[in-house]
């Protein structure tokens, strides 16, 4: 069964009386374990699309299924639960809570999942280790005491802490230098190796070359799709702290 299915999904905004289509009539299926990149020019609707996939936004028309569950049938409560359990989000600007320790940022989804406090800490520390951060050294740092690359890794740890099947990332390397970009891509690839489905939104061709499947977006529509038989493999050359 597909982990993600969109059927004739549209999203439009009412501007000056005329509807403006940010996403127009998109149908798409993502199978478990896939690594997908969505590319396209600025304003083409990539972010909107990702929000629809992650149930952050409600389509104006069409249907979204996550892991076989039809989203339009769900209450606010059930949607929140599905986001919490099935989807992990990574954003371009990290979106970490300021003045809050790294491990507490990571533990946030667990809090909403109703996990006991002691277990929250232990699992948050585990997730930090998984993304290559030493929990003892960096777990108690506040976001402003971490580099951009480290902050994004904390954000990824937060996205995977509930062990979701689907990871959605919107320009995750947009604010990072080339070395950090490499590290983050390597991390996504190794998570994908473990079976996590990854969808990355990016406008950088170099980043898209790391995905097996690349979907091209323009004016809210899918205008092309190709399979990369030999995706680039990001190297975890040096382990940065």
């Amino acid at each position: 069964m597909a982990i993600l299915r969109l059927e004739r999904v549209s999203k439009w905004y009412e501007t000056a009386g005329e509807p403006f289509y940010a996403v127009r009539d998109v149908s798409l299926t993502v199978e478990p374990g896939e690594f997908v990149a969505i590319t396209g020019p600025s304003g083409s609707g990539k972010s909107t699309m990702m929000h629809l996939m992650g149930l952050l936004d409600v389509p104006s028309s069409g249907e979204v299924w996550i892991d076989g569950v039809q989203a339009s049938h769900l209450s606010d409560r059930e949607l929140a639960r599905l986001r919490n359990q099935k989807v992990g989000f990574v954003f371009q600007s990290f979106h970490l809570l300021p003045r809050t320790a790294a491990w507490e940022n990571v533990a946030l989804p667990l809090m909403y999942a109703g996990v006991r406090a002691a277990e929250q800490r232990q699992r948050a520390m585990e997730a930090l280790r998984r993304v290559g951060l030493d929990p003892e050294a960096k777990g108690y740092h506040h976001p402003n005491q971490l580099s951009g690359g480290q902050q994004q890794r904390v954000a990824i740890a937060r996205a995977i802490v509930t062990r979701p099947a689907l990871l959605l990332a919107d320009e995750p390397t947009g604010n990072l230098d080339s070395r950090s970009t490499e590290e983050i891509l390597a991390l996504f690839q190794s998570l994908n190796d473990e079976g996590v489905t990854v969808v990355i939104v990016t406008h950088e061709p170099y980043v898209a070359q790391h995905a097996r499947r690349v979907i091209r977006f323009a004016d809210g529509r899918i205008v092309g799709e190709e399979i990369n038989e030999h995706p680039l493999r990001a190297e975890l050359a040096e382990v940065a702290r």
Partner: protein
Amino acid sequence: MNLLKTTQTALRSFAQNPLRTFLTLLGVIIGVGAVVALMSVGNATTASVTQRIEGLGTNLLVVTPGQVTQGGISQGLGSAQSLTMSDVTALQQLSDVSAVAPDQTTRAQVVYGDTNYQTTLEGSTPDLFDVRNLELSAGRPFNLVEEQNAANVAVIGTTAAENIFGNANPVGRTVWINGISFQIIGELASQGGTTVNDDRLIVPLSTLQRRFTGSSNPSTIYVSAVSADQMQQAQTDVELTLRRQHGLSFGESDDFVITNQATILSTLQGVTQALQSFLGGIAGISLLVGGIGIMNIMLVSVTERTREIGLRKALGATRGAILRQFLIESGLVGLIGGVIGILFGWVGATIYGRVTGTAVTLNVDAVWIAFVVAVVVGLVFGIYPAVRASRLSPIHALRYE
């Protein structure tokens, strides 16, 4: 999502904005502080006034002239000259009356050496000292012989004594009152409470009437019943006797007023109750203003933290979880503000007590009522901002810069 964690989150958000938190708390602190201080001081004042009135003596009846109506125009209470010395004699015959003291007052100029002092001059019979429970700290009261002979002797109150003689013992000294020499034979013990009761000289009634007022009508008659049990009977007898004395026929209203301690107390209670609810109203308004302050700041906080709210929703927070988070924050403002307010109110009431010399005790009812109201105000005024926060759409919140 546990309460402890949410409370921690709320406390952290306070710590991140100390000034804003303080300003939000201030409204609640002032409101609660005002309630606690005003109620405590109000209670203490009522208690001390009650005590003073009870100090008048439980057996005391006070008879004053009623109001005269001339051509349909009321002249006000006490305007009549309706009480006479023969009324006094008649009242003395009553079996349930133990003592009767007619009383008159005037203002007079007391001269001693270079000192010139304006005070109240009160004239009465020796019975006054029994009827009014007047204790002497030095010397003696005047006696029946001095009263009959209109002797120029006086008993002085502590305030008057201090103002005229300073710290010197007034007993045995001679003063000039309106140009007539008087010997001070005794000093009253302090009456406590207002200084009005201590700022006077008491002379025999006959002396006052002959040398100062020229009128033989007492302005007040103090009557002491034989016992507290017979107060009611005594009051009825006094009323009937005076009606007969004044030749009032059936259906005519009294031309005098009889007051007893119970009526004074109930009047006082009415006044303090009105005062308390007035003060309570003011305190309530300040709590309301505090609540509006909470709402205002919480709305700002929701706007400022739009991104945080969106993120929490993306990570799986339900509307209920966001609602709870903000409600707990505003409830905590009420709770913390309430506790600090109670402390301030208590300190304020204690300082008031020290300055005025009243025994102020913390009004426990006011404390917990103010506390509960503060928390409720926090929660109630937090509802609207919390609902706003919980309704934010996650993407609107995440796109917000």
